């Protein structure tokens, strides 16, 4: 088991290396540079800036320098937020995004799971259709529509909740962004749970459990749900990585200082180190959560073992 985890983590290094390499050169191909403003800077200033940020060196040299610093977990200075290093920016914003994403994930998993199970147990009845219609709406209505509607009703008209701001993660401030983030995930989790639960409830071993007069809890949770949760778990890997690394839309609308905004800002400003930093962070999350999913699988299903 430890051996397997260690192997997977070591195996992530070449993957990360490839991602870093490709994105390093991709962002450099994009026209323009970090210091190109509408009014060009003085040649002397430009030269200075380029020297400080090593932009005057050959590309491969810059690449090697970047690899060296990233190997020491130093993402370098930001080109745009001149007084900050990328590490400092992430240290502030990443915990906020993680807290937001994790809360949304738990909400989605719980509510989506319960709705899915209820729909499966009432298959093709009114409850089922209601849940599934709501789920379809949840998936199809984009969050930049949901967020303003929620802000307008609950924030502006009713005045129950603050319309934006993080306020150190105060409970009231968190509700709207979490709901906005979680809604589409609730919908997906509910659909997935319903589908696999229906299949599980029809399976032969659940029939056995029923035939042996086991309690409803044992039939539904112990025997049906444990198997039915597997597809949800494999969906959650990439979904969790996406949620925890922040959402541009939600963070912008609610004015939350998370990491999501940096994706867009970094790319628009040609803030090379910021773009690279966000790419590496997202890649790490994806790799990490895929590993967690695989370990969860092994935990849930004895036929999958990683010895």
């Amino acid at each position, binding site marked *: 088991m430890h051996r397997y985890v260690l192997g997977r983590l070591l195996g992530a290094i070449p993957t990360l290396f490839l991602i870093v390499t490709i994105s390093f050169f991709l962002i450099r191909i994009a026209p323009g540079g970090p210091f190109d403003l509408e009014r060009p800077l003085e040649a002397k200033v430009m030269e200075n800036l380029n020297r400080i940020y090593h932009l005057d060196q050959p590309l491969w040299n810059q690449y090697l320098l970047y690899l060296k610093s990233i190997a020491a977990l130093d993402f370098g200075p930001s080109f745009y937020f001149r007084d900050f290093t990328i590490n400092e920016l992430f240290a502030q914003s990443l915990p906020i995004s993680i807290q937001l994403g994790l809360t949304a994930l738990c909400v989605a998993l719980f509510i989506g799971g319960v709705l899915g199970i209820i729909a499966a147990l009432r298959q093709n009845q009114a409850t089922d259709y209601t849940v599934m219609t709501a789920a379809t709406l949840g998936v199809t209505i984009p969050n930049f529509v949901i967020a303003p509607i929620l802000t307008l009703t609950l924030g502006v008209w009713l005045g129950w909740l603050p319309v934006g701001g993080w306020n150190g993660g105060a409970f009231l401030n968190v509700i709207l962004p979490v709901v906005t983030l979680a809604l589409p995930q609730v919908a997906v989790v509910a659909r997935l749970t319903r589908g696999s639960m229906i299949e599980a409830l029809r399976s032969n*071993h659940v029939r056995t459990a029923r035939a042996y007069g086991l309690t409803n809890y044992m039939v539904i949770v112990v025997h049906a749900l444990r198997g039915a949760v597997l597809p949800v778990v494999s969906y959650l890997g990439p979904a969790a990585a996406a949620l925890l690394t922040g959402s541009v839309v939600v963070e912008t609308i609610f004015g939350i200082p998370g990491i999501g905004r940096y994706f867009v800002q970094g790319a628009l400003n040609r803030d090379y180190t910021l773009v690279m930093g966000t790419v590496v962070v997202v890649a790490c999350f994806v790799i990490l959560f895929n590993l967690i999913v695989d370990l969860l699988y092994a935990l849930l299903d004895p036929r999958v073992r990683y010895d």
Partner: protein
Amino acid sequence: MTETDTNPVLTISGLTVDFDTPTGPVHAVRGVDINVRAGETVAIVGESGSGKSQTMMAAMGLLASNGRTSGEVTYQDRNILGMSVRELNQVRGKKITMIFQEPMTSLDPLYTIGRQLAEPMVVHGGLSWKAAQAKALELLALVNIPEPERKIKAYPYELSGGQRQRVMIAMALANDPDVLIADEPTTALDVTTQAQILELLADLQKRLGMAVIFITHDLGIVRKIADRVYVMKDGEVVETGETRPIFETPAHPYTRMLLDAEPTGSKAVVDPKAPILLEAQKIQVAFALDAGFLTPSHVLKAVDDVSFSLRRGQTLGIVGESGSGKSTLGRAVLNLLPASGRVVFNGELISGKNRASMRALRRNMQLVFQDPFGSLSPRLTVGQIISEGLLVHEPSLSARERDERACQALEEVALDPVMRNRYPHEFSGGQRQRIAIARTMVLKPDLVVLDEPTSALDRTIQKQIVDLLRDLQTAHGLTYLFISHDLAVVRAIADTVMVMQRGKVVEAGQTEDIFEAPQSAYTRELIGAALLTQSHLAEG
């Protein structure tokens, strides 16, 4: 199996089961009366679709959600039909238990055997988990599972089909039931395993004295174990009575047809000097099993040094239990998986040929699979399925010509060509197997490898398919490699028989010699087990 005049322990009266489907209600069971006395073995016999399983599923409250019931199922003076789940759970799993046809999937793959055995005891018997585990261990020993201490911690996937069915039986016995319902408990098992499970059930019944309701399509089993028989057809009981009279003087034509369903006859002899079509020498197929963390990798020889030759027009029957390597051999001969040894087909060495160079030969060597449900694409019409091979092997044909050929092929397998525009799910198992055969016939092959073509079918349908295969063989001079675990079918269709066990040939020879005077102990065991379950019904 005692003669008793006691009151019935379970009485089913006027039971109907209807299923609501999008195309209207389906009447699966139409007013069935069945009763079982204490300690008695009652068999419910019928073909698939006769409603025999649904009758018992309804009694146990296990119908699919679109099922509706009426009538009465009386246990201990109470109608358990339509009881609330809570009330029903006081009875099912405790006093009435059930084992199923699918031992491979009837246990939850995610929990250990011990845990699953313990559950009903904890729920019904009020035992602690620890006490239940101890009792589970005793039960595993009772059903003759080897190494019960180790198996109790095992997961279902670590057990063979026969062992899983033993675990199910142990589970059924846990709470000392009055009635045990066995729904085709041996159908999915090998003949020798089948015989052992039946023996175990009979023995346990003698010792524990519960009543057994045995649902089966296999009359051999019924004759061997049942006190009374109910024969079901289209949701109704058409005949009932003591076992002996039913077998000796069946009153209903349907019963007579079932009794007559054993594949009979034998194949017409072919010219012993016919040219050799297929020659296989020293075929070996080995699978490397993955090394685990602590277990070294080892090589499993699925087929170990098998040679045979097959003359044009002949049928070679390959017999063996699951895991004997018979299917693997069939595939190796067709060059569908890597094997060592020499295979000469029609004078041409085909071993070691790559896919591309095999393709031209494929039309002359066709394959029919066991599973008529899985081997036809659900998204193509029957006409498309049948003529697909022509697209590859006779690309010059026009769409109309292909369609004509598909019609001819369908006629040959006695299906109406009008059906070619339908999809496979609209056909029964026997019809699908006919379609699968038509798909091979359309290419006019020399050799057809038939891999358990009749195993998923009812006896009466089996007989029809065997007759069809024999007719096609005579008409087109086909050569068959017939792989089966079913000795009765092989006897009816093969010229020569090869018995395989663990990848090796145990015995080979003319069909009559093998069946009349088997040389090896294993062959004798196989034949013995087969006769137990598929006894020669004609002998009276």
